[in-house]
């Protein structure tokens, strides 16, 4: 990670010190690069916790490895920084062990779709009640700019200097086809919108998949930049009911910059609920 200017942070801190939602912020200052989209995600997260009035000690955030992996240390709640790709299994075990806790799992695009890609289908089909936030900057940030599973075809990266030969995954389409019962997208430049989907995902009893489009300002100068995102992001153009899989799939395909809820299955029972039913 790139060195951060303490002056910048001081100013930023002053600006927001008065704000109430900052009680969810830990005493540790984020070590992310100035301008990184992750700051926006954190803001939305704090605000969502505030609005839902979650008790600090009942929140658990489980992360993998990457710039996104540091997230829990910046939250004033319980947190577990685990292994590259493994936030989902750990969060699943935690939630089944402690249904009383509100469990978040966070991961980078490399974390969740590359090394940990094998866990996603199963947590989705089991419908374990965790809220999963994908910090999708379409690059490996922490290891400094190699191609990830969402890096566009032909984009030049540090691991593919003449162009990425691999085609990117479409995370929303994957989540839908894996059977996730809540699928949404947010944009790091829109904390209010992100707050809304995080809250809705948290309240959803089952696995919630939330992709956040976010820029890595240090290692991606051409693709998912603030400029490109600002120009392209728009609210999803589909029914807000979001209860139709076909529509959701089409939107996943045709609206790569659409933000909002793609799909939710209100009737689907959570894993715990199913187990309780089977063992009753």
């Amino acid at each position: 990670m790139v060195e951060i200017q303490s002056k910048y942070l001081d100013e930023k801190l002053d600006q927001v010190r008065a704000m109430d939602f900052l009680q969810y912020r830990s005493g540790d200052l984020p070590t992310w690069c100035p301008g990184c989209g992750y700051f926006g995600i954190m803001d939305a997260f704090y605000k969502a916790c505030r609005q839902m009035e979650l008790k600090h000690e009942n929140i658990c955030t489980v992360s993998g490895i990457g710039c996104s992996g540091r997230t829990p240390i910046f939250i004033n709640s319980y947190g577990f920084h685990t292994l590259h790709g493994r936030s989902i299994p750990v969060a699943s075990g935690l939630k089944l062990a402690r249904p009383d806790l509100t469990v978040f799992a966070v991961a980078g695009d490399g974390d969740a779709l590359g090394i940990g890609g094998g866990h996603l289908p199963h947590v989705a089909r089991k419908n374990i009640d965790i809220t999963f936030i994908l910090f999708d900057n379409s690059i490996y940030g922490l290891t400094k700019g190699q191609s990830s599973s969402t890096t566009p075809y032909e984009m030049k990266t540090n691991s593919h200097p003449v162009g990425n030969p691999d085609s990117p995954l479409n995370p929303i389409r994957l989540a839908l086809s894996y059977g996730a019962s809540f699928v949404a997208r947010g944009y790091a430049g829109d904390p209010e919108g992100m707050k809304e989907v995080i809250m809705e995902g948290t309240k959803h009893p089952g696995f919630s998949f939330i992709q956040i489009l976010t820029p890595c300002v240090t290692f991606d100068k051409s693709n998912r930049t603030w400029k490109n995102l600002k120009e392209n992001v728009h609210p999803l153009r589909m029914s807000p009911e979001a209860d139709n899989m076909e529509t959701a799939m089409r939107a996943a395909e045709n609206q790569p910059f659409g933000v909002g809820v793609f799909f939710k299955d209100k009737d689907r029972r959570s894993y715990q609920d199913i187990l309780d039913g089977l063992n009753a």
Partner: protein
Amino acid sequence: MKDINIVIEICGSAGEGTISAGEILSRFMSSQGYEIMSFDSYPAEIRGFGKCVAHTRISSSVINSPGKLADVLIALNDGHSISQLSALKKGGILIYDSQPAKPHEEDKSVLGWADPSVVSYGVPLAMLAQKAAGNLRGRNMVALGAIAALFDLDREGFTDSIKARYAKKKQIVIDSNVNSFLEGFDWTKDHIEKKDTFTFDGVSLEPRGEKLIINGNQLVAQAALDADLKFYAGYPITPATKIMEILSKELPGYGGTLLQTEDEISAIGAVVGAGYGGIRAMTATSGPGFALMTEFTGLSVMAEVPAVIVDSQRGGPSTGIPTKTEQSDFNAALYSGTGDCPRVVLAPTDTASCYDATVLGLYLAEKYQTLVVILLDFFLSNSIRNIDTPKKPGPQMLNANVNPTEEDLKDYKRYKFTDDGISPRAIPGTPGGISFYTGLEHDERGRPDYSDKGHLAMSEKRYRKHASVLKEAPAPVISDFDGDRADIGVISWGSSAGAAHEAVATAKKEGINAASFSSVMLYPFPDEALIEFAGRCDNILIPELNFQGQFADYAQGVIKREVTRLNFITGRPMAAEDILDKMREM
């Protein structure tokens, strides 16, 4: 008093009731007050007509090993039994089908291959089964009837054991089996002229309380339930699968949750997640699965989260030999993964100690906030013993978490430095205990800290904690010395320990001055006791079921001298006879 010590093998092909006949024999002999140890071998391929052997040792005194060669071979299937003859003692007894349903091809009769010293009895197994039940299925029961008659076992008592075995089946199944047994018994009494001298008659055994007839996997599962296990995650693999299957039935009734995961990485990940959540959690696997779990073994140790992995060893490396026993994961259990990574390793030495090791493992993991690996092997997982009902763990074994005091919570440090290395652990949900766990090197508050001083201090803390575990370790089992010194000291671990202790006891009777040592605790190892023991022995012998002598390498490093190694990777459990032969040579 007359002593009984006999090994009976039943050999057939899959589907001939070989294993269930062995089970009934064990059940009956146990009900008569005998010690039993039985072990089945069957093909890795589930379908087809592979060879099955039910091996049962029966004794009127304590036994610790399965016995190597058989005294009696019951051939349900001639083809397979021909290859089993090499495991029959010289002068042993062979029971075979004298009127098989299909005539043998040339050279395929077991009788023709038996050593001339063998005493053989032909019993028309197929014909009698047909007579008793109208089909051939009861040949195994006819054979049991034959040995019951030959060796003067209680006709009615035996039928009770058969009824108990099939209690949940339809009446017609029970009747067919019982009638086949009786047919075999009566025919043998009427037609067979006894040529051997073996009999169970005239043995008087102390009446004993009800015994459990059980294997290691069943005991691990039962112990986990009794020790307050609340979460199990796993992925099926021989020979550990049965643990998951038992728990999937039982755990919900104990208020716990079972999760079948997509792979072993996810299984141990979920166990670590549940352990982090403050409940007792474990998984069970074998070599290939343990290999996948390696990355989480490091995280459990580094982030100080309780986790228990049962590794039932099988032939390795890689997929290896799924249905053969081996002790070749010693190094993996102690050293798998990267970095300086102190974890706890326990290896039960017999069936009964599978229970105690599981209870202890869950306790140590919780109290010391670390990874505990429990090493079973195919033999311990599957061999059946009759044992006393284990004593359930008391409250001090069930509530082991070192909770933070109010004082601690005023300024809570998750990784606080302490004398014994144990930092009080606030469970998520505890107000005031908010903390950050990480697999990165960290300071007392869990914040990443890459400084040389910090890394050293935390490494010291983890090793201090590891050393503290030894204070709660079960003491090594050390035999009496005849005088101050022994010519041969046998040091053993895991499932080979029983054979080693038995070999030493027999050797002493033969006039060999020997002593034996075994420890359930493998890591941290009771090095001081080992050094003291070795110091009193002129020669050291270490028998184990791996090629390299993995434990021997460890022991040599501690006692700083060469040891004699005895290594087998035949897939058979260690036999006392193997060790004795080596001792006689030394």
